[in-house]
């Protein structure tokens, strides 16, 4: 309707929008604020720290010097005992100092990045050809493929947990480091492949057949027309699909935890964050800053691709 909104309506609208924004953003603000607070501030309900504390970030990112940790009195006396050999003293000291990274953000980041990018890339390539096949070529079983994609899309996650783990164990992959990484890569591929097929399939259906027919008249074989016509036309969609798959793999926790638990050096970011939580370094500001650091890449990715993502998500379908 074209009449202007009344003042009261404007207020109500503004109120609704503000409420909505608060609802969405509050947890994020909370995390950010706590990550910047000193311990005395944690109980403070105000979101604004009384004093900004960058220690947590510094430590997580490896900027701070090795921290001196409190050595209990009894141990101190033990160390002063001249009878203890130097090595033994060192060993005991090590247990109480934290020279080790408590949250090797860079390493986790790289692990997550390589795994996610690798899985998204393979998924994209497989899906390009598969989606082209069932959406633009005619052959027996084509319809089954189309319906099948939808079905496979919805099966996943916990349902496959036990059998995939068993398969990993039985083939021996799950016992070695690289075997586990490979298994996880394969699992991420299979978790993103159906949604890639679905989104690309929907997109390919919107390209008119006559363009490929014109290419055929111009002398392109089928494969040539895929390479020269379809691919260039699909670049925006391909980017969207890649980013979407990347985010799915990046956020994944369950399978990473099952397969990579024993190999701390190879943890992905979500897994690393959770280990932090159950480790003895589980203090709120560290946890919160680690949360922010895990969030940041996704938010950046998302802002970058936002316009593409929302439009294509609706046309292309969505995945959980």
């Amino acid at each position: 309707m074209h009449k202007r909104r009344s003042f009261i309506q404007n207020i109500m609208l503004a109120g609704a929008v503000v409420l909505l924004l608060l609802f969405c953003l509050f947890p994020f603000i909370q995390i950010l604020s706590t990550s910047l607070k000193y311990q005395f501030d944690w109980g403070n309900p105000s979101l604004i720290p009384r004093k900004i504390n960058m220690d947590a970030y510094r430590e997580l990112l490896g900027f701070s010097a090795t921290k001196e940790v409190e050595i209990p009195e009894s141990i101190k006396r033990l160390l002063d005992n001249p009878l203890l050999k130097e090595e033994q003293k060192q060993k005991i000291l090590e247990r109480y100092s934290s020279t080790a990274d408590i949250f090797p953000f860079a390493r986790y980041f790289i692990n997550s990045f390589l795994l996610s990018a690798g899985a998204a890339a393979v998924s994209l390539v497989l899906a390009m050809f598969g989606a082209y096949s069932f959406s633009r070529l005619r052959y027996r079983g084509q319809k089954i493929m189309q319906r099948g994609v939808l079905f496979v899309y919805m099966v996943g996650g916990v349902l496959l947990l036990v059998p995939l783990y068993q398969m990993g164990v039985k083939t021996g992959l799950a016992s070695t480091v690289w075997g586990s990484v490979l298994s996880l890569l394969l699992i991420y591929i299979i978790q993103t492949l159906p949604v890639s097929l679905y989104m690309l399939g929907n997109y390919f259906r919107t390209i008119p057949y006559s363009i490929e027919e014109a290419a055929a008249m111009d002398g392109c074989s089928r494969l040539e027309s895929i390479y020269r016509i379809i691919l260039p036309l699909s670049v925006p969609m391909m980017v969207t699909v890649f980013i979407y798959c990347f985010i799915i793999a990046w956020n994944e926790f369950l399978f990473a935890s099952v397969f990579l638990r024993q190999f701390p050096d190879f943890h992905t970011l979500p897994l690393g964050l959770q280990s932090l939580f159950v480790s003895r370094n589980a203090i709120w500001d560290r946890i919160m800053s680690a949360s922010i650091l895990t969030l940041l890449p996704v938010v950046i990715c998302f802002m970058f691709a936002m316009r593409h993502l929302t439009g294509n998500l609706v046309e292309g379908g969505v995945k959980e």
Partner: protein
Amino acid sequence: MRLAPLNERDTMSTVTLNGIYKKFDETEVLHNINLEIGEGEFVVMVGPSGCGKSTILRLIAGLEEVTQGEVLIDERVVNMVEPHHRNIAMVFQNYALYPHKSVRENIIFGLKRAKVAKDIIEGRLKKAAKMLELEDLLDRRPSQLSGGQRQRVAMGRVIVRDANLFLFDEPLSNLDAKLRSRMRVEIRRIHREYKTTSIYVTHDQVEAMTLGDRIVVMKDGRIEQVGTPMEIYLNPVNIFVATFIGAPAMNIIDAMLYLGFIEVEGQKIALNNRVEKIPVPASGRRVKLGIRPDFFIDEKNTEHGASLSRIENALVDIVEPLGFEREIDATIGSQHIKAKLDLRTTAGEGEKITLCFDMDRVHLFDPETGMRL
């Protein structure tokens, strides 16, 4: 399977269709199509929507598969040959330009695929761009062009190719009337220049009449008649062809044929020799009488009124002035007649008029089969 490199040939392609049947799932869309198209001919396939004319084109191009029968190009069976090996150029109804390529790239794409030398490509591009007035548009994208411009790019794509067969799938149907008549002239000019064998599909009978060396009239998957425009205009083989070609459409009037004369709404009209050969029982025979509106003359405007056949007392219903002519919608008894008369006619609406015509111009059709008698 590649055809022999056709740029070695100087002659244009011939196309032959033998006993073609085409089914989509269980529906038969083409029934026993037989056709021969000679070198350099411009053949127009015309008919109402869904008659199968586009399907035939796509069979020749290789974009659809033949259910039964043979397609021969240059006397070779090409059923199994893939479309990109057939060396045919085609203009699509929706132009099918490559959206991500510029006009220039769109036009020369086929040449680059065929690995033609660069200077030859440049030369042909220049010639085509000049002919189609595309010189200023070469660097634009299809999305920045109007419908008419896109159509010309699609034409450009076709004429730079070295193909010996051009296919046109209703290329003008998305243009407005003015552009359409302009482009019709362009297409004729192109054919005169390049002399390529062309097969042109349209539902517009004006295009068919003006462009074709020969016309193929189709209906419901069958060929009704093949012939030059004049042949079809003057001697349609059945009611469908008679009413489809020519605008306004031929009048089809119910009449009774007797020995020696024909009766229309109570009026008796004498027959001439041509018609006398038709078998007639004593009680008469129902026929449909066909005569084109263009062949009527107002009795008042001719001195030969006595020697011509006539229909009297036609009640003028509507007069449509069309500049040089007047289109009269009249009724005789319960039937309608349309006549195209010149400006000397003064009959107004509600008046009675006598229409004269030459019996030679009349066709008689069997009411059941629609075939000409």
